[in-house]
């Protein structure tokens, strides 16, 4: 009986939340602030993707069967806040310009984007190093 109630409740909640998440048409005037916000977002995404185009990054991606398109798609799903946090973390990687720095940053991003499990990190570093 209890199970049935829980089940019914879950179904009800799902029904409601789905109703909430039906994409509303957001056709509208663009405010100045939102224009700047979306420009900022696009610039951050480009920055992350530029990193993915690095030669060393390409190797990491290939090793894990991840394409730059996969990364781009995942980035698109992040909220602005999450994207900024991710970009900031990548910025904080040591030796930003070096190959090792790039590899570490790419791995970090892949882990954060859930494209690569944290436990896989060390085997990845090894063959490349």
């Amino acid at each position, binding site marked *: 009986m209890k199970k049935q109630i829980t089940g019914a409740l879950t179904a009800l909640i799902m029904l409601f939340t789905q109703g909430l998440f039906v994409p509303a*048409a*957001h*056709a*509208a*005037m*663009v*405010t*100045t*602030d939102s*224009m*700047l916000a979306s420009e900022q977002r696009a610039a951050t995404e480009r920055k992350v993707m530029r990193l993915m185009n690095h030669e060393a990054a390409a190797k990491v991606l290939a090793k894990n069967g991840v394409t730059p398109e996969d990364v781009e798609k995942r980035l698109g799903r992040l909220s602005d806040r999450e994207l900024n946090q991710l970009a*900031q973390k990548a*910025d*904080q990687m040591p030796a930003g310009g070096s190959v090792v720095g790039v590899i570490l940053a790419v791995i970090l991003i892949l882990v954060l984007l859930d494209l690569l499990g944290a436990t896989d990190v060390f085997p990845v570093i090894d063959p490349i190093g």
Partner: protein
Amino acid sequence: MIADPSGGRPVAALLFLLVLTACQTVPPPERADARPRHHLDVPFIAQEAYQCGPAALGMLLQWNGLPGDKAALVDEVWLPERQGALGIELMAAGRARGLLAYPINTPTDLIQEVQAGHPVLVLQNLALPQWPLWHYAVVIGYRDGGDRIVLHSGTDRAVESRWNRFLRTWARGRYWGFVLLPPGDLPDSVEPEPLLQALAPMQGDTLPHWEAAVARFPENGRLYFGYANALWQDRQTDAALRAYRATVERAPELAPAWNNLAYALHETGQPRQARDAVCRARQLAPEDPNVADSVAEITDGKGCGSH
């Protein structure tokens, strides 16, 4: 006195900067020579305890002719658990009162603003980088061709500091500072893009600020966009329509401007021109979901097709 400025530049760069400034004697900006001394009339509020942020903010507000009651400001911007105020909150508090909060981040700009009669709120680190002692003060003038700078600082009214000493403490504060200006007044050192960034988050009646902005940079399409939006928000539909037209003339690649122009045309009963405008936006931003929805709405679901 503890404070936390906005943004975070790499610590390494900061340290490098500190090493540089620590062993160099940097002369005051050359432009200070033109007018060897300058003193602004800025109301003074002495700080209590660690509350230099609210006091410094209060001085700028009073200079603007607004109430700058320290006790009220403490409640608004002071964080008890940090014993300090956040820099971005000081700017936001000014913005919320309809003032333009514009960043001042170089010694030259600092002197230039003082010469223009604008007091500058600065963040200083009075101690070591490792054990920072953050402090907000208001630069109200300078003398001896910039060799000495005059500040309202802490409990000291119009206290003088040697330029080099001040510059070191300001550098340790990452050259963080800003002016708070009334509608219609712009910083002397103003640049279009930072101005756009400073005005965009403002709410309420922002029109006078935007009018000043486009008067100062009449060829800048991005500022015109903000101006047009402010007119639209003020329900000056016809003026907004003209301003959107002026925007796309100046910035023909700006998709949001074409999008908004389309709505203004739509609203004023010009459906065909509205369709052309929104389809132009679509061309410029083919993947923008907002523009895609605008196309559907403006063309009644017919889309742009291939003419």
